[in-house]
Structures are given as C-alpha cells and as structure tokens.
C-alpha cells in the first residue's frame, strides 16, 4: 500500500461555535446557527436568514491578538482563527525542519471590504480607501494566514465554488503522497458579504425560512460563513513525531457535471462520479460507508440530483446521511473543510448528527435523512460531499484511524 495521509490537527470557526468543542456541543444539542442578519446593512434584513459567525471583526482581531484592522478582511480573520487551532493541535511551530504548506480556499476573498470601497470610488475615482481594496483578491487571505503562522514552504489558493476547500484538502494529500511537502494545513474560509447574498438571491435559491435539506418543501439554501482547516501529513511522519492521529483521509474524487453553469444534472452524473472515485481510491465498497455528510444545500435542484446519485451508487443499502448545512448554513468556500471537521467529530464521538428542519420525504426519492441524533454508533468511514456551481463536484472519505 502507498503512503497513508493522516489528520493530526483540525480547527473550525462557524455559526455554531468558535472551535471544535463548541461546534460539537451545538451538533449534539441540535442548535442551529441560522438566524437574523446582523453583520451589514441590507434590504434583506429581517427577510432572509444567514448563518453568521457570532463575533464582530473587532472581536475576531482580539481573539487572534491582531491589531491593525485595515490589514484584514473578515475572510482572513476567520481563516486565521481556524488555521491556528489546527496548527496548534498538530504542534506546528515555525522554524521546524519539516516542509509545511498552506492550501486555502475561498469564493470571494476580501469582498466584504471591496464593498465598502466601491461606492466612494464610483462617485469619484480618486476616492475610496485603498487598504479596503488591497484585500480584494482570493490569494490575499491565504497570505495573511501564512504570515500569521509563518508558513513559507508552499502556499496556494483554490476557488471552485462550493467544493473549494474539499479540493484544497485533495491537493494537500496529493502533494504529501508525491513527497513535495511534509505537512499541509488545508481548508478554507469565507465571510458572508452583500455581494454573495444578493448574488444568490438573484438566482432565487435562498429559503426565507432557513434551509431544509432533503425535505419535500425545501425552498433553497441559507448562506453561512466560517472557516476550517485540517493538518495533513504522512502516517509515517505522524508516528515518528509522536502525534495524536484524529483520522485519515482514505479517498477523494473530483469530477465535473459538465451540464450547466449553475444547475446540477438531473441524474447527478458528476456527483456520482466524484463519490465513486473517492470510494475507489479508498478501496472501500459502498456498504462500508457508515455515514454520508451530504452536500444537501436545500435547493430543489441539488438535493434531487445528489439524492438520485446516492441512490444509484448505494442501491438499497444507503447508509445514514444528513446535511449539517441545517446547522452551519452553506459556508461556500469553507463548506468542504467545515464538513470534513464535522465528519471527523462524527468518527471520534461515534455519533451521526441529524438533518435539522426536515419534515416530509421527497417524493422522487426512497431515501430520507437521519433526523434524530444517533449516539454510540460505530462510525468507520464517512463520505463527505461538496458539490458546486459550475458542476465542480468533490467527495472525500474520512476514516477512523487504526494502525496497520
């Protein structure tokens, strides 16, 4: 067998908690992070919900001991908080001889600050604070995180819509297997912005009641924000360094629907391919998957397409599945990594978290999500799906660690 890539650290910041313990608490107590808009002024306030991280930028700065607020987009602040937790858990320190990389993902970079810059700029092209637009591009937040953690050996940024951070985790694993790097902090961060909220609203896929994945009456997604990162390294290195291993990444697959820019294909071809590739790489037959953390956005289109692909792949033996977006909202570029951390929590705490807000089965599907917390259930392999606009579909398989 080839090199096994293990997870030795993880960090998470989301609307349901500022670290893994808080997130686990909310998941167990079935407390959703979806609520009213408070972060910015918008005509959608009181009409559309969001899953906001319950900290202001000033509080996030303080949390990480940062001073100069002009330097940091909210995406950077969320990313720094989550990546530091992951690095701390794995014992990553600057100036170690190991080659450490950072692969981050997001969908709108520092758009929160570009939005502040733009109105003044449009009025008069010599106006608008430049510090507000210097954080615009997607790579900027990655460099802020890298500077904070003093990561120098490799950095890059991925943006494949809602599957972005799943692809960051995949690239990290590939680089470790190829020996290009020893350890990687991989994941993603995204802040909610007026840009994103209004953009999704034009597509008429935001549920004003909050998302209800896999429910017959579902009416769209709820945008969330957050960040999560995993520390990946080879099993051999982790053992040599005496690290605690939280789980391992046994497979992954990336495929494209090649159907439509925003709609998933009716038969879920890309989704099916991504899942099948992930299982194949892990050498795992479908029956051995203990839990599927589905993409489950709550849109008509995604849940139907994903559900059909799941039924096709798993046949009559579909494992327990749920969409935890009913807790965290759809955190876009961070979703793949946030759900990877939730999958690890499921493995470590032997439970399957319920799909909140579900009441009625979809008439096109014979499967239905888990709606009550399953405790004391052995979770060996979790399939985590991240499917995005542009047909960018990625699946990860996270597995319980046992030395071989």
């Amino acid at each position: 067998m080839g090199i096994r890539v293990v997870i030795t650290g993880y960090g998470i910041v989301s609307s349901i908690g500022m670290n893994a313990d808080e997130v686990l608490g909310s998941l167990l107590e079935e407390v959703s992070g979806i609520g009213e808009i408070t972060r910015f002024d918008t005509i959608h306030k009181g009409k559309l919900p969001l899953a906001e991280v319950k900290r202001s930028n000033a509080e996030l700065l303080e949390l990480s001991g940062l001073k100069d607020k002009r330097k940091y987009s909210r995406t950077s602040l969320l990313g720094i908080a989550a990546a530091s937790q992951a690095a701390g858990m794995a014992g990553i320190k600057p100036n170690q001889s190991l080659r450490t990389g950072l692969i981050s993902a997001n969908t709108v970079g520092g758009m929160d600050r570009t939005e502040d810059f733009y109105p003044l700029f449009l009025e008069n092209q010599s106006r608008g604070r430049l510090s507000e637009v210097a954080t615009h591009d997607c790579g900027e937040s990655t460099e802020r995180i890298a500077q904070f953690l003093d990561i120098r050996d490799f950095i890059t940024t991925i943006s494949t819509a809602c599957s972005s951070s799943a692809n960051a985790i995949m690239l990290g694993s590939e680089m470790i297997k190829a020996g290009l790097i020893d350890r990687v902090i991989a994941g993603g961060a995204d802040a909610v912005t007026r840009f994103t909220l209004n953009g999704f609203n034009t597509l008429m896929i935001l549920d004003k009641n909050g998302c209800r994945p896999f429910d017959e009456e579902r009416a769209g997604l709820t945008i969330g924000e957050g960040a999560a990162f995993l520390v990946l390294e080879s099993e051999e290195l982790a053992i040599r360094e005496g690290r605690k291993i939280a789980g391992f990444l046994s497979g992954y697959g990336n495929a494209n629907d090649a159907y439509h820019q925003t709609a998933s294909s009716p038969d879920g071809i890309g989704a099916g391919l991504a899942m099948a590739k992930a299982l194949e790489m892990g050498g795992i037959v479908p029956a051995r998957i203990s839990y599927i953390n589905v993409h489950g956005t709550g849109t008509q289109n995604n849940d139907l397409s994903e559900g059909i692909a799941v039924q096709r792949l798993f046949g009559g033996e579909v494992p327990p599945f749920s969409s935890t977006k009913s807790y965290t909202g759809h955190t876009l570029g961070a979703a793949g990594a946030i759900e990877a951390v939730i999958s690890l929590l499921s493995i470590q705490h032997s439970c399957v978290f319920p799909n909140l807000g579900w009441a009625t089965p979809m008439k096109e599907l014979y499967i239905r999500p888990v709606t009550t917390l399953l405790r004391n259930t052995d979770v060996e392999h979790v399939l985590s799906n991240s499917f995005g606009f542009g047909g960018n579909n990625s699946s990860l398989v996270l597995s319980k660690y046992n030395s071989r």
Partner: protein
Amino acid sequence: MAYINGIGIISPQNTLPGSDFLEPVVEHTSEFMKSLEPVYKLYIDPMASRRLSRLIKMGISSAKMCMQDAGLEVPDAIITGTGLGSVEDTEKILGELTIEEKFLNPTPFIQSTYNTISSQIAINLKCHEYNSTYVHRCFSLESGLIDALLQIEEGSALNVLTGGIDEMTLNHLTIIRRLGLWKLEPVRNLDLWSSALPGALAGEGAAYFNISKERNEKTYARLEAVETLYKPASTGQTAEAVLRFVSEHGLRPEDVDLVMMGNNGYDEHDRICNEVMMQALPSASRMLYKHLCGEYHTVSGFALFVAATILRKQFIPSSLLTIPIPPGKLETILIHNHFRNTDHSFILVRR
C-alpha cells in the same frame, strides 16, 4: 516532467492560430495592452456566446484552440489559473449594489465566480473529469501546472488541459494605479524599457496548454518542473532557490541557455529580477518579453508559450529582447516571475 503538446493563446500580440510566431509585432499605445481577440463564433455557439462575458469567451476559445492544436477531443483534467477571474462581471455587480439591492441580473454573479472558466470549458468539451481553479496572484497559473504535473506523474491523467487567464478593465486599472507599481499614463509598449515614466504596463491574456505524459509529433517542449517560492528572506535566498531547483533536475547553472526575465518596467521589481539572476545564473542569456504582453497575474502563460515555441522552432524573434543571442542549440529555458518580491515562481522548460 511532462510534454507540452498543444497551445492555445490569446494575447496582445499575434498569437492566434495561423499567425507567424509573434510576427508582425503589435504596438499598443492605449491605457493597457488589450488582447487581440479571435472571431468567437469559430469556437463558441453564437447563441451561447451572447450571454458570455469577454473573459469567459477568451477562456473557452483559447482552451479549444489548445485542444485543436494538440489534436485531442477531451482532456483527462481541466485546470485554470486566474488572479482575478471576470473583473468585468465583478464590477457590474458592485456597481449595481451601489445603487440598489434589487433587480440585479444573475448572469454577472454567475460569471464572476472564479471557477466559471474551467466549468464552461468542461461544458464545451463535455469533460466530466477532474476540474479545478487556482486563484493565487502570480501563483495561479503555476499552481495549475504543479497540479497537472502531479496528476501526470501520479498516473491519474495522461493529458491535462491547463492554463492561465486574466483580463484588465479601465476601472481596475485606475484602482491598481493608485496602489502604485504601474505607469500612470499610457506609454507605447515598445518603449517600455526606455520610458522615463516609472512603473509597469498593464496587460492581459489567456493561454492554455496541453500537458501530456507522452512525447509525440506535436510536442513543443518538455515541461521539466515548476516551483513556487513564497516570501524569501533575501535576494540571496531566492538565488539559492533557483540553483537548487535547477540542480534538482540534473542541471548545472551553465546548462540554462536562456532566462525569461520577470522584468516589467517597475524599477524596484526589475532590480530584484536582475539581482536574482545575476547571482544564480550569470552565464545565461536573458530575455525581456513583458513589453509584448504587459503585466498581469498569469503572465507566465505568455512566457511559457514563448519558451515552448522557441524550443520547437529553435528561433528567437527579434521582438523578444535577448542578450546575448544564445550561440548554439537552445536546450533549456528558465522562466522567472515574481509578485512584490513575495511570490516567486520558476518554470523549467527543455527541448
């Protein structure tokens, strides 16, 4: 290591299919160096094309040119690098948001999403395989090339379509000019190196490459390796990284025949490029090329097209300022680029 078996490139120069290698040279005197766009209906259904913004059309077209050049229908993976994605669409939404959060048009939002280019290429080529997009400044194209090489070396792909693409707009140029580094007024591109006005000239372009496991009759050159270097502590450390990179691939410093320099006309930027190569590869010939395509995040795509074509043709057009002209056969070219001395990249191309 892999082979470059096809190229599709839209640039401010004559690089469309059927043109001579950078002949005749195109002069630009306006605010930025705009790409010479193809007749899009050759590549995109006119009905579909009407709704697509300029960047997306450039992406699909250059990707298709590349596949035609390679004589292939469907790749095993599609990877795009873009520093900023569709700037035009992003500006449209930001402009609309400034007025009112109502009656917004969904199309610019969809197209502003960075992965739209790769996914539109997938739809156009009916490719269900691996699909990704890198969005890290001047590491965008380079990260895609690293990913492509990984996939080929690990055996998960035989041929990968990967490229870099960025566009410039007048609004965006106004903003970046205020941030410094850029010429504040238009300068004729061919006068870039002699102009008294400080700063770089802005450009744009799209370049896709067919990166393959096997050499064939279409092969331009060998893509030996790609490396990125983040935040070097000093010029000396950057020079050391160049030497290590070259030697890791079995080469001595004197084996590098030609370096495509990252110089763009901004003094501080150029000083770093010059010092690094002076220390690392003093005997190699140096080539300046950014007067032809301008500066942008994925400019290495233009450079890689030039390097691969030179190696195949064994000919350097005079518009590429090269000192001295390498005497013998050209075997090895190194492309160096950097962004604010923070993000350095190296691409090694061999015959």
